[in-house]
């Protein structure tokens, strides 16, 4: 069964819907006027710590976040 449904251009390029939707949302947030823009960007900040496990034991966790200074 050949895919004769018209796929959107982003899916044809290998992007998923979530990626597409997040890119659109980021572009809209970057075009906001000033107080709203900083609110929106601070709301969407991500901050998490990752620890890799080897031999059943966790190694020291690394902290990752959107902004490079942390």
């Amino acid at each position, binding site marked *: 069964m050949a895919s004769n449904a018209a796929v959107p251009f*982003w899916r044809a390029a290998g992007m998923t819907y979530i990626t597409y*939707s997040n890119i*659109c949302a980021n572009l809209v947030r970057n*075009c*906001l006027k000033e107080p709203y823009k900083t609110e929106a960007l601070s709301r969407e900040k991500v901050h998490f710590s990752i620890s890799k496990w080897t031999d059943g034991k966790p190694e020291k966790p690394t902290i990752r976040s959107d902004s490079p200074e942390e």
Partner: protein
Amino acid sequence: MFRQASRLLARTTTPWRRSRAFSSDVPATPAQDSSFIESWSKVIPNLDPPKTPSSFMTPRPATPSAIPSKLTVNFVLPYASELSAKEVDMVIVPATTGQMGVLPGHVPTIAELKPGILSVHEGNDVTKYFLSSGFALIHANSVADIIAVEAVPVDRLDPALVQKGLADFTQKLGSATTDLEKAEAQIGVDVHSAMNSAITG
């Protein structure tokens, strides 16, 4: 023989009724799980049955037989609920197939949305939001659920940033090589031109 007559008469009137319901006719969700309560009371008649998750949820309104006069809109974002069960006259959603107006009694539809303007019409008031993308689910009982990742009132968009973004992405589209870069640049051009027409139009 005549005792059966009323039953036979009743049977001949049934063929004109639909024997199977349409799949889009959604029944109202009950506030309690009746089969659970029945089986509980058979096994443990002395205790009250515990509440199940369905009793904590507000039940889905039934599909009314006449078209209701107002549309109930639930407009939600990941971080906030913009409109929650608001009764309006009409909403116009930016579907990928074009601007779609939704009135009470609209056919059940699932529409993918493109970056564009959502306008909510209530009497003489029109509220417009610019949506980044999302979905609109319209149910048979005239409830419309609109979900978007980002939605801002149009006056919060900065025209200078939009123009700059449009110019940047148009240039990136010209110079893109891989499929993925082209797709990203195309998305940038689409979103910025939608914002541009939202601000000017």
